[in-house]
């Protein structure tokens, strides 16, 4: 029996097809193929699989790409353990097909993404437009995406829900000096439909008078959500051929969640190697309808206990080591690289309690230890240019 404890992953991923580095509007992306193996491990959840990206120029002004991505999920997460269910295994596949067209200093891009698993299907369309101007010192970009999701529930053949998502993006990149570039980005995302996870439950005092135990009932979410995010970023070239990168992002949404993200990066080439170091801080406040323990069943119109809607911080650090291969070319390839990447993330929740640990300790409802966990993310990939 599969469960949708990671459903939000797929809703978001469907719109993730618009997520690749902003390119200069007057230049088509490089012709290259990347074959990547990814593995996420944390909170007794493992998600791993391959990703293949092939990009090829079909004419002087047209470039096409195809991405095939798989998530193999094995999960006994805090939600699964709290519910008393057993570990589940499932697979999700995603395919994206896209084209970029260059006309003068303008690049137009269109992509279609399809994501499928046994109880969740998502399709999305993405359109992007970029324009260079002001002596190519400035790049203005804008984009629009629309996604449609079909949600089912394993074990409940009558359950059928839908959700739609739209995204509006605006970005500006600016060359400041011969060593310094900056960019700003703004994105509004709207959701409408069934936004809750059919497998997730909220918790309430049972009975209300003594709160002797936690009761559980299906979450109830609003049917709409609108979010706004604004980011500022910069990259600086250091005199000894290295680069510093920084980004700051603020976020808020109609569920009363506010968040900030700060990240720093450093890139250092050494002989045939390129070393990347990165550090990231994230902090968010809870949704207005989130509570770890409600006073009674159906206390409010909307009730949620998704830890992603709680108050929490995360800190992550990581490194990527790239080794250049075939520098003089090999067969049809101009060059290549071998890459190994590792990131560690620590999540610290401020109002989400570890109910399974509380059961072991004999804690009363609402006094269980606060939840925290660490996760490791590994990527191994080879890149070939032609």
């Amino acid at each position: 029996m599969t469960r949708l404890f990671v459903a939000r992953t797929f809703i978001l991923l469907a719109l993730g097809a618009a997520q690749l580095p902003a390119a200069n509007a007057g230049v088509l992306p490089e012709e290259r193929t990347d074959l990547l193996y990814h593995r996420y491990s944390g909170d007794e959840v493992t998600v791993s699989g391959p990703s293949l990206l092939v990009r090829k120029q079909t004419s002087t002004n047209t470039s096409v790409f195809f991405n095939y991505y798989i998530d193999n999920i094995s999960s006994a997460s805090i939600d699964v353990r709290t519910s008393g269910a057993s570990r589940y295994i499932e697979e999700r596949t995603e395919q994206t097909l896209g084209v970029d067209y260059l006309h003068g200093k303008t690049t137009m891009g269109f992509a279609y993404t399809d994501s499928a698993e046994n109880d969740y299907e998502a399709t999305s369309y993405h359109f992007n437009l970029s324009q260079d101007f002001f002596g190519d010192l400035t790049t203005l970009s804008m984009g629009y995406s629309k996604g449609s999701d079909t949600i089912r529930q394993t074990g409940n053949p009558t359950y059928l829900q839908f959700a739609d998502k739209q995204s509006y993006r605006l970005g500006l990149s600016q060359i400041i000096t011969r060593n310094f570039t900056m960019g700003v980005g703004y994105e509004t995302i709207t959701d409408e439909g069934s936004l809750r996870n059919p497998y997730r439950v909220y918790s309430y005092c049972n009975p209300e008078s003594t709160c002797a135990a936690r009761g559980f009932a299906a979450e109830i979410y609003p049917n709409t959500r609108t979010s706004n995010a604004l980011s500022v970023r910069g990259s600086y070239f250091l005199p000894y051929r290295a680069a510093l990168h920084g980004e700051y992002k603020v976020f808020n949404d109609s569920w009363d969640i506010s968040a900030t993200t700060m990240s720093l990066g450093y890139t250092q080439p050494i002989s045939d190697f390129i070393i990347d170091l990165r550090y990231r801080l994230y902090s968010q406040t809870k949704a207005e309808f989130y509570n770890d323990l409600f006073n009674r069943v159906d206390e409010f119109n909307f009730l949620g206990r998704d830890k992603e809607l709680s108050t929490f911080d995360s800190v992550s650090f990581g490194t990527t080591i790239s080794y250049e291969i075939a520098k003089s070319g090999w067969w049809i390839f101009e060059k290549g690289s071998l890459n190994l990447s590792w990131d560690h993330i620590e999540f610290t929740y401020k109002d989400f309690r570890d109910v399974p640990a509380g059961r072991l300790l004999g804690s009363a409802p609402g006094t269980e230890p606060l939840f925290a966990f660490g996760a490791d993310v590994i990527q191994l990939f080879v890149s070939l240019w032609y």
Partner: protein
Amino acid sequence: MKAMLAIIVCVLTLGMTGCGIQPWVKPYERQNLADPIMNPNRDGVSASYIHHVHETRESSRGAGSVSGGGCGCN
């Protein structure tokens, strides 16, 4: 956030009108900016994946450094 939006609008207006300002970094002065190390997301398939890892475990979404560029994958 409103203040930052105002700054964006001002920068956009300035950029599109030019306001008499000439491009101050010539094409032949941009070799450092063209170095691949200046792009923190130069390996798109990897950058997109790690972006996805973060975004699926957080409520924050959108306006990431790897968004808005055109093509896509995860």
